[in-house]
């Protein structure tokens, strides 16, 4: 439970509140009780002065009964415990408690202690020193006692009785003891009030903080957590609902963005993998179908030759020959699709290709009342592409868009523009050499259709060749070795056996050896020699910043594609057109764009339309 961020925050805030309110309450109660006691002290002092001055006259006249009467009357007040007058010898001469009259009080008793600590009694002491707070026994209420000295006076030694000699300074003391019962009750009451207030305040603060923490932190964090769990389970379509513009909200947006990118990357990767295996399958199928087709085509064209004088046969045979030729073209296009051939590229103007493509499908478009809107960037640079293939892509996309719009008319929007993207995962190593300038590019071995880098691995008596991915950042290296790489293994140029290992460096990720290659005029490319590490670095490319692409968007206002179909539309043989389509169109498109090192993505909303976004790198790598 204490692992939860919300609870922790609440505990931290509540603790702070307890400390602050506690300290505040302590000082508040303290000053309150000090104030109250001072008030009582003042009151007692005043009372003492009153007693002394009201008994003065009677003392002069030595009318002891009257003095006792006054003291009794005062002593009857509720809060006053007793009122005593002691003479200089410590004998209680008057008291509101008659039983203790004429008793001797020890000089060390608490009432006397204030003045009689030293050998000679002090004659002038402050009010604080004259006051004492005490308890009769541990469970009794507190009392405050105040002693007031009765000073000698001229009138005292000049009075008729002449009871006191003139050299005496203090004639006796008045001791009044007042119960602090009321004051203590008051203090306890205010203590309880403050504690109750503190508890209420702490609980309230806890709840308020808890409410906002839950609202601003806990529930969005839980949403994010749930999202990451969904993504880690492979659900890349998960997106987090909008969480506002604060930091967590931004985190959520960047999470959504990341997931989307991840989904796209996975899609491309998946597609490329599928295409490769499908290519092999298609090649096999084409080969198998071509043999029986040869039988049909040769026999039928043979019959066609032999039945020249029979027009009826001729007609039928021509259909067979024609249709077999058509099958041959279909299989050929299947093979074209399967073939990992490098496109026949030349310098072309994308806008021009788009215009040509529109011309080709113009009839079909006007038949379906489809309007084409062009938002073409006039400043588009020329680009090295296979114009025919790219035209095929656009024609296919336009026909698809027109089919999606149907007979009721709509709009196709084509836009082109130049964009810049980061080179990591795109840049290709075309030339690489060892220190002796031997080329390390292996035209015989291709990774994803591109000649790979070859490196000889020598480990004791074993040696073999590994191939490294020529695309910077993709890291699809092929380690086809029948022995393990260890620390003594060396990586050398296959021609001159010169080591490619960089001496004073090791992989920052796993500590393995770093291989370095000189890239003709493009700096040095470094890659970790371990099969499991994905460290690679190519400063030249990193420093060159973003690379440029031409982005072509083709949007229609057609029926749209459901999410379910969206993930499958680039799959071969997937078609929503029923008997009308082969399901190869978009798969071929994908293959063409992939061969141009480009990407194609699709966005669609059912009922609103579909947008295909094609990106072609401006600098073609071959």
């Amino acid at each position: 439970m204490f692992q939860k961020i919300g609870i922790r925050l609440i505990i931290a805030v509540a603790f702070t509140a307890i400390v602050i309110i506690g300290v505040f309450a302590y000082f508040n109660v303290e000053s309150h009780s000090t104030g109250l006691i001072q008030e009582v002290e003042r009151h007692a002092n005043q009372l003492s002065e009153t007693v002394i001055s009201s008994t003065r006259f009677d003392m002069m006249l030595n009318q002891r009964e009257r003095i006792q009467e006054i003291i009794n009357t005062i002593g009857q007040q509720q809060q006053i415990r007793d009122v005593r007058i002691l003479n200089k010898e410590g004998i209680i001469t008057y008291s509101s408690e008659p039983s203790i009259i004429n008793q001797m009080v020890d000089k060390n008793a608490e009432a006397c202690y204030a003045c009689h600590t030293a050998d000679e009694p002090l004659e002038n002491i402050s009010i604080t020193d004259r006051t004492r707070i005490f308890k009769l026994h541990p469970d009794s209420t507190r009392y405050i006692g105040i002693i007031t000295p009765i000073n000698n006076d001229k009138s005292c030694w000049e009075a008729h009785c002449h009871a006191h000699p003139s050299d005496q300074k203090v004639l006796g003391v008045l001791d009044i003891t007042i119960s602090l019962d009321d004051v203590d009750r008051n203090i306890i009451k205010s203590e309880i009030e403050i504690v109750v207030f503190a508890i209420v305040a702490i609980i309230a603060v806890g709840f308020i903080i808890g409410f906002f923490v839950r609202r601003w932190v806990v529930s969005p964090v839980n949403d994010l957590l749930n999202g990451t769990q969904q993504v880690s389970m492979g659900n890349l379509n998960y997106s987090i609902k909008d969480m506002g513009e604060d930091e967590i909200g931004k985190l959520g947006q960047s999470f959504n963005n990341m997931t989307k990118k991840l989904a796209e990357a996975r899609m491309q990767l998946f597609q490329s993998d599928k295409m490769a295996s499908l290519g092999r399958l298609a090649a096999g199928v084409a080969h198998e179908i071509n043999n029986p087709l040869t039988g049909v085509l040769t026999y039928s064209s043979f019959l066609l030759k032999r039945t020249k004088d029979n027009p009826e046969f001729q007609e039928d045979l021509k259909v067979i020959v024609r249709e077999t030729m058509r099958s041959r073209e279909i299989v050929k296009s299947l093979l074209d699709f399967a073939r990992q051939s490098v496109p026949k590229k030349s310098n072309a103007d994308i806008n021009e290709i788009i215009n040509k493509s529109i011309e080709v499908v113009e009839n079909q478009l006007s038949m379906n009342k489809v309007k084409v809107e062009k938002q073409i960037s006039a400043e588009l640079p020329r680009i090295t592409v296979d114009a025919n293939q790219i035209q095929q892509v656009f024609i296919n996309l336009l026909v698809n868009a027109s089919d999606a719009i149907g007979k009721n008319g709509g709009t196709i929007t084509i836009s082109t523009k130049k964009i810049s993207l980061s080179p990591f995962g795109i840049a290709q190593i075309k030339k690489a050499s060892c220190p002796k300038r031997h080329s390390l590019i292996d035209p015989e071995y291709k990774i994803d259709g591109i000649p790979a880098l070859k490196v000889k691995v020598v480990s004791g008596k074993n040696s073999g060749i590994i191939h490294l991915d020529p695309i910077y950042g993709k890291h699809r290296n092929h380690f086809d070795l029948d022995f393990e790489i260890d620390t003594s293994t060396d990586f050398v140029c296959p021609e001159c056996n010169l080591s490619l290992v960089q001496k004073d460096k090791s992989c920052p990720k796993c500590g393995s050896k770093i291989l370095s290659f000189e890239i003709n005029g493009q700096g040095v490319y470094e890659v970790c020699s371990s099969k499991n590490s994905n460290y690679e670095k190519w400063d030249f490319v990193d420093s060159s910043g973003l690379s440029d692409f031409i982005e072509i968007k083709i949007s229609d206002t057609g029926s749209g594609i459901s999410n379910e179909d969206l993930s499958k539309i680039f799959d071969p043989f997937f078609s929503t057109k029923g008997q009308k389509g082969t399901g190869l169109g978009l798969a071929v498109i994908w293959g063409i764009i992939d061969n141009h090192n480009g990407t194609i993505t699709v966005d669609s909303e059912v009922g609103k339309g579909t947008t295909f976004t094609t990106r072609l790198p401006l600098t073609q790598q071959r």
Partner: protein
Amino acid sequence: MSKSADILVIDDEQVIIDAVIKICSLVNYTIDTALNVKSAIDKISDNYYKIIVCDIMMPDGDGFQIIDELHKKKIDSSIIMTTGYSTVENAVKSLYNGAIDFIPKPFTVDELLNSLYRANRYQEIKNKLEQVSSHQNGNHLYYVPCPSKYFRLGYSSWMVPERDGSVLIGISDLFLKTVDSIKNIEFQNREDEIAQGISCLTIISEEERAHKILSPVSGRIVEVNEKLKDNPNLIEKDPYFEGWIYRLIPMDLDYEQKNLIPCSSDRI
């Protein structure tokens, strides 16, 4: 050598063999067959065939093994390669290794017949040359070999890099000699892209035979030889200079040149 059939057909599919037999019966060739590489090698060791029609992909090996075997035994049969897996690589490799033609499956009767026709003519020329050289009758040239700076794709087409970076391509004289006199040439258009090993031009002969020329390099056509359009026979008169067919901007000359045979090697 014992008298045997004119043509050996090697294919692992019986239906192809049957079809080829039928076609060849139209032109009175005698046929022998082999269903795999091993039996084919046995047969070429024992017999001489003028023409060998050979599939590339077979269960116990590929057609290139048979070409190697022929080279090793110094047998100069004309080889026509055929395959259901008709890739550019296969086509180029076949011609590089000395096959006189490459026919992708499925083929029509005419396609095979025209190829056989050229193979037969090729054999005749070779035989005449042998007779000439055996009679020490030097100067009788039956065809003009390509100039030394040129490169050729098998025996069919040639290319020569020009100083400005473009390349000229044309048809070798030996190929033209295996074709009857030309009636018409079907060109591709300017700005078209052509690829190495893929048909770039069709020659229609007086006998209405269509012969496809495989391009020696990939590139974009920037110029078509207009003189040939008016006068197709120019190509026969001067196949290497005036009779060029296209000027191309090449795509990947360095790489593709490896698949071509330097004409200088013919003169050693």
